[in-house]
């Protein structure tokens, strides 16, 4: 490792060769402003196109200003980050960007969490001397994501997420010069592209150009309707991130306050998607054991590895990109949909409410879930199992609108029966969690023995692709884990090539799993936030009295009273699904 010395703002700093000026300055506590730059650290995503030019600095001896995010340090370099030349250039560049931006900050969905707005405040912009034509685009409303490209600043972080990280390849720069914009090919709308609605573009967009579809107005209306029973389910990852929207440290668990807030918002029943996660384990775990059992008996037709199916972004991905492999994933529906299905049958019977009088709402860290609710196969006579889904961010906004002081809310418990869950259900929120939950149950069901140690450390972590093996009493089960669709693609390519050795693979579309979902409070490019949420999830798990899905008494009761046994005909009808070849259907036909 070669070290070099340089001077930044008259202070000497020593850095490794290859370090950029931006990082060298950071070492000195100098925060050079950036807009397009994004570095998600351990997630191995670094985006430094050098496009916005806000981070320019003066390097002595250099003809023009250098972008700090992309320029590597040299020995004896002398850098000025706030000379008059730099300050003027930086502000002028920002004024230019603002001159092509709609001034609707007061009513913009990103107001208050917008990086561009922050920058304008920081630079003290008071007027825009450069006025002229503004880019105007027709807004693009898809079932999950809204694109308002008038607000795009061409940072192209979304492109990096969509192409490099997710390998979905929907978003890219089109047209040239002032007309250039990020869009699907031929400027089609998202709904006519291969978009998986993973929402990672939304998660990294610095402005209001990419946002999720807003369902809060609909929700307020339903809550106010006396003829409707409004049921809410909250995903595991929400409780690990919601607090951030109220200024709490990332990684603060707010389960109890969240439940209290939901109750005060007027939901009739506050339930937990974790319950459905336990149910998923019963179905998916049983399916895995079934496939494994047949495989071990020498059945050549059995499809292995089995892939998890609880992530709707991932489901969309393989339907578009690997439709010929759609018999490999588990047929189990996602926890969101299992919950909706059970709520509008089993629970509706209990509370003697008609299907069309019940509204099932989900709070999700996810954007793709909004789309998932709208899939036809998840409705009965046009009535969807889950009526709609709101994001963690939307929930935070609703709480604020309803005049609640979130910090002083008491801790309350979920309602029963669909609010009771185990630690296994909680860890669905992080990469590695679904498979760990499945292993806890599958091991005990397969071996008939109690687990000595519930934590499977070998399945945890933040690496994009991980593998581990678990000893099922003499049978070695090989497990693969991928988060990020680009990583998933690698495992799928291996399966296709016949090179995969795994029995089961867990896949989540978002970095870190649901905790890094597109509907979460914005991490603004700070990967430590995602890691803190992961820690919180495992903390919630270890504090739970019951940590294995099959020991959830309400799950046991659900099977006894209603479903029979896992993978029964009724379970199949209500809790399983089938997949489509969408390469032909949606994309090529308009």
């Amino acid at each position: 490792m070669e070290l070099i010395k340089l001077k930044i703002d008259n202070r000497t700093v020593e850095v490794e060769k290859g370090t950029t000026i931006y990082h060298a300055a950071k070492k000195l506590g100098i925060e050079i402003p950036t807009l397009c730059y994004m570095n998600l650290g351990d997630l191995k995503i670094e985006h430094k196109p050098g496009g916005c030019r806000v981070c320019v600095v003066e390097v002595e001896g250099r003809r023009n200003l250098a972008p700090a995010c992309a320029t590597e340090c040299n020995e004896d370099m002398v850098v000025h980050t706030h000379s008059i030349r730099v300050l003027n250039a930086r502000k002028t560049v920002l004024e230019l960007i603002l001159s092509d931006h709609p001034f609707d900050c007061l009513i913009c969905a990103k107001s208050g969490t917008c990086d561009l707005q922050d920058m304008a405040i920081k630079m003290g912009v008071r007027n825009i001397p450069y006025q002229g034509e503004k880019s105007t685009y027709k807004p693009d409303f898809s079932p999950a994501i809204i694109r308002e490209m008038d607000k795009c600043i061409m940072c192209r972080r979304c492109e990096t997420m969509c192409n490099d990280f997710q390998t979905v390849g929907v978003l890219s720069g089109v047209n040239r010069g002032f007309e250039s914009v990020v869009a699907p090919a031929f400027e089609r709308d998202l709904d006519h592209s291969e978009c998986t609605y993973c929402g990672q573009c939304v998660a990294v967009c610095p402005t209001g150009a990419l946002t999720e579809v807003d369902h809060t107005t609909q929700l307020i209306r339903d809550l106010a309707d006396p003829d409707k029973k409004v049921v809410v389910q909250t995903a595991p990852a929400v409780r690990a991130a919601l607090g951030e929207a109220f200024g709490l440290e990332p990684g603060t668990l707010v389960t109890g306050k969240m439940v209290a807030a939901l109750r005060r918002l007027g939901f009739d029943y506050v339930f937990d998607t974790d319950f459905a996660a336990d149910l998923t384990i019963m179905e998916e775990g049983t399916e895995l054991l079934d496939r494994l059992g047949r495989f071990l008996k020498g059945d050549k037709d059995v499809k292995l590895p089995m892939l998890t199916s609880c992530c709707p972004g991932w489901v969309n991905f393989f339907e578009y990109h690997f439709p010929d492999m759609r018999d490999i994933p588990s047929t189990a529906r996602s926890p969101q949909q299992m919950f909706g299905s059970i709520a509008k049958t089993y629970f509706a019977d209990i509370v003697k409410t008609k299907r069309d009088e019940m509204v099932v709402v989900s709070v999700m860290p996810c954007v793709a879930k909004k789309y998932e609710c709208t899939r036809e196969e998840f409705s009965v006579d046009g009535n969807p199992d889950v009526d709609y889904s709101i994001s963690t961010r939307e929930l935070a906004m609703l709480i604020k609108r309803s005049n609640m002081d979130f910090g002083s809310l008491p801790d309350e418990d979920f309602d029963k029966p669909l609010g009771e869950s185990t630690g296994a259900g909680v860890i669905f929120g992080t990469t590695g969690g679904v498979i760990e939950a499945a292993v806890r149950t599958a091991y005990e069901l397969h071996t008939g023995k109690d687990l000595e140690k519930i934590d499977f450390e070998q399945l945890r972590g933040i690496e994009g692709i991980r593998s581990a093996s678990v000893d099922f009493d003499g049978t070695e089960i090989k497990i693969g884990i991928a988060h990020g669709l680009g990583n998933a693609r690698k495992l799928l390519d291996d399966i296709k090539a016949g090179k995969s050795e795994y029995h089961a693979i867990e896949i989540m579309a978002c970095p870190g799993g649901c905790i890094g979902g597109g509907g979460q409070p914005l991490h603004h490019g700070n990967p430590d936030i995602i890691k803190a949420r992961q820690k919180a999830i495992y903390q919630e798990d270890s504090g739970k009295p019951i940590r294995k899905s099959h020991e959830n008494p309400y799950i046991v009761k659900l099977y006894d009273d209603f479903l029979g046994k896992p993978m029964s005909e009724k379970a199949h009808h209500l809790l399983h699904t089938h997949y489509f070849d969408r390469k032909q259907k949606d994309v090529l036909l308009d």
Partner: protein
Amino acid sequence: MHMLVCGGTGCRASASEMLYENLKKEVKEQGLENDVQVITTGCFGFCEKGPIVKVIPDNTFYVSVEPEDAGEIVAEHALKGRQVERLLYLDPVDKKRISDSKGMGFYKKQIRIALRNCGLIDPENIDEYLAADGYEAMGKVLLEMSPEDAIQEMIDSGLRGRGGGGFPTGVKWQIASKVSGEQKYVVCNADEGDPGAFMDRSILEGDPHSVLEAMVINGYCIGATKGLIYIRAEYPLAIKRLKIAIDQAREYGLLGKDILGSGFTFDVEIRYGAGAFVCGEETALIHSMEGERGEPTFKPPFPAQSGYLGKPTNVNNVETFANIPVIYNKGAKWFTSIGTEKSKGTKVFALAGKINNVGLIEVPMGITLREVIFEIGGGIKDGKKFRSVQTGGPSGGCLTEKHLDTPIDFDNLLAAGSMMGSGGMIVMDEDDCMVSVAKFYLDFTVEESCGKCSPCRIGNKRLYELLDKITRGQADKEDLDNLRNLSMVIRDTSLCGLGQTSPNPVLSTMDNFMEEYIAHVEEQRCPAGTCKELIRYEIIPENCVGCTACARNCPVNCIAGERKQLHTIDQSLCIKCGACLEKCKFNAVKII
């Protein structure tokens, strides 16, 4: 006897193909097939007077030849040995006919190195290239020199990249040669995008083998076995001739495996560009070839370290390549004897604008702008006054009278506020409004910006809008300050050469013609009389004879007046097209 007919794009547009056919027919009819060979060549450069026919060995140079002239040329010149006097060039000064091009002002000061074979050989016949010392340099390098020695020769020659940047070619090769990599690439940048420029196109149309030969040498020096020519698809003739040249070179064993028994393997492929100006920038060019969006990326890494498909790549311009075989044939020392201290050799320029001799010229570095414009170019059209000359393509600067004696080289042009660029040279006269000229160039850069970085994407648009405001007489002094600040910031912060130079036309016109900006802003007046919103056409009563020519030609019928009566213009309807001024024979229309 050889009759060389120009087959460049310009002359072909003036029916030189038909002329060629007619000459062949006449030769056949006269039974001269064994004595007279009619050959299509590349561009002679003197496009103003095309189509050109040159007869050798007596070097008779016919200009503005039409297909119908073929019979006379063959009957008179070929059969009777008499020159066709009326087709010889008429010297505008002493009004004498000149038969040998060497005696013409246009050619006197030119030295043709890169263009040496253009107008001399049939570009579609490899034998003619071979007869003109073709592939000799390649043979010498491959069989007698080590890559290190060959690179050293290139460094010693002082050749600098002709694409615009002026980076020393030998040094570029040396960097790529030292980077280890299993696969390396040589790329020929034939994405000539400056409006009105046709240097590279003419070389490829007139002498494609010289580029191929140089690419092989480049490949040998850096250890690359593959060459790619990135050429815009709207150069069909250049593409056609390149394809023929590649096929012929392969057939002769001058491309492909084990070239000339040297053990060195090299082959060339053509890649088509869609005509984006920014793809002349080497990283953008490489991304375009990779199938990515044609936009530049931050350097380093330089292509020599990580270029096409992430492999070490040398990108050189067509004209640079065309110089290379001659350097090896005649030696670096010979090459350094031409040019200035830091800029060796010659430069090809596409001379255009308000100048008598429009065309393609190659001049030694160090020649002055005055020599180029007034001797080679034959001075300003219609006896008007010289105003400005813009060098370096759309992002060059506008130079004035005071720069006319500046010797042309990379560094002098840069110091004067312009640049060499790839060799565009546009001359402007007293009728050109310099604010409008700057606006014209910005219109181009706004169109051609890739949109990646904000200063270029938005800044150039705002520059254009400010200039537009000025030409409409709606700007104030603060706008002028903003214009300058914005220009400086765009230059200082843009990602690639396009944005870093696009404000040059603005800054140079502000530096050299500030009084024009002030007139537009403070007096709402356009001194050149071209900004439509700032002028009006009026009829001078004393001069008007009532001929009705203006009224009859006015497209919006806004001129009233009876025969033999004074005419008047309705200013509220006038669209300021200038038709009345043009049609008036009595000097009775003036611009106010």
